[in-house]
């Protein structure tokens, strides 16, 4: 059982969290023309890094999204911050 730090509620068991995706996905502006492969990249491509990762998670009980930094090999948590408030 991993412990993740919700920036709003504090440390909680991993079962309370939902992986929402890698940080940094930017939705193409679909009111303009979007090339098929640009759209496919947005939809499906993953960095899937081995080591330091930055991800967006939701803490289900408070429903807040936040950024979790962790190590995908050791499972060490390296930090977390609200989605809208990057650390200074």
């Amino acid at each position, binding site marked *: *059982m*991993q412990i993740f730090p919700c920036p709003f509620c504090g440390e909680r*068991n*991993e*079962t309370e*969290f*939902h*992986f929402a995706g890698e940080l940094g996905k930017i939705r193409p502006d679909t009111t303009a023309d979007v090339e*098929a*492969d640009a759209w*496919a*990249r947005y*939809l*499906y*491509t*993953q*960095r*899937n*890094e*081995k080591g330091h*990762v930055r*991800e967006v998670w939701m803490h289900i009980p408070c429903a807040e999204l936040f950024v979790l930094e962790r190590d*995908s*090999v*050791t*499972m060490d948590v390296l930090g977390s911050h609200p989605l809208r408030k990057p650390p200074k």
Partner: protein
Amino acid sequence: MSRYSAWSVFREGLRKGKGWGQAWRTPTLKKAYDVVIIGGGGHGLATAYYLTKNHRIKNVAVIEKGWLGGGNTGRNTTAIRSNYFHPESAALYDKSVQLYEGLSRDLNYNVMFSQRGMIVCAHSVPEMEMAARQCNAMQINGVDAELLDAKQIQHLEPALNFGASMRYPIHGGVLQKRAGTGRHDAVAWGFARAADAAGVDIIQNCEVTDVIIQNGRCTGVNTSLGEISAGVVGAAVAGHSSVLADMAGYELPITSYVLQAFVSEPIKPVLNAVTLCPPFGTYVSQSDKGGLVIGGGLDRVPSYGQRGNMPMQQTVLSAFCEMYPSLAKVKLLRHWGGIVDVTPDSSPIIGPSGVEGLYLNCGWGTGGFKAIPVGGYLLAHLLATGNHHDLSRPFGLNRFVSGRLIDEAASSGIAH
């Protein structure tokens, strides 16, 4: 290669095994090969074997960073089946089952493919309707399938929970009789031995650290044992596919997760088939040795950790106890995890990588053991001819652009 047979076992018994030769050599790495295959799991080894067998290409190296078969091939729950919904998947996986059916004799290595049948249970009226949809799809796809009612399932698998307290009562299910289990290590070893005998160099404890690209074309790899040049390169590195992609500069729609497996102490036979109960997300078979081999869903956190975590253990094993309450008193002997390469549609990626001269076989995720023969067969075809075999064409990376995903998840609960 000394041939294995009842006679050779008898003869070697008499002379204390003195005549058994090496299953595979420990060759020294050459500077150049016609084909270099990265990853000595089942798919990599099978690719090498079919290159030699179907395409007469023998100047081949398989580069494995650890011990051969030590990735997911040596960690899975060994279910082999072709009970797929989409015609593309059915064609792919049924070809694999067909190859498995002759594999022991083909490789001269007993991979113990045991066609004991697989039952996918249905637990409600709507699930029964989906089961009918699935069963019909399979039959139309030319795959054997039978729709069973609860009585028939109880007859096949009497230890299943038909009690009143069952959370998801069993209404029936789909049986594929030709499905079953195989001995995972033996599949890796059998392919390795046969490929080695045909001249393939299997290099263990050698890690590919970089992909050499000249003028946009992949011409070889750098490894912990030195540089190798290659006519073409095939990559079959499963959970590490994204790491390789990063080296070579192409992109993949893959996320690596841990999938766990569980095995109990050996007990006398209590289970006949492989049984999956979709609402529990859990499936089980009993190994020839007697252990209950239990599998379920992915751990929830993306990971390269190759070890499992407690929440999913509780989910899977409590589900198992619900499915087989009389077996809750059996003891868990070992559990472990593998790093699986999960794609958005749970279907594999076979085809060009985007870098010329580098071809992919990955994305098998939670269900590529059953596909080892066909995965090798198809990657060998690509490497030898530069073109898709008809079976692999739908599974290229371009499907993510065209939107032609082959999503089995919707029709099969979980896909192993």
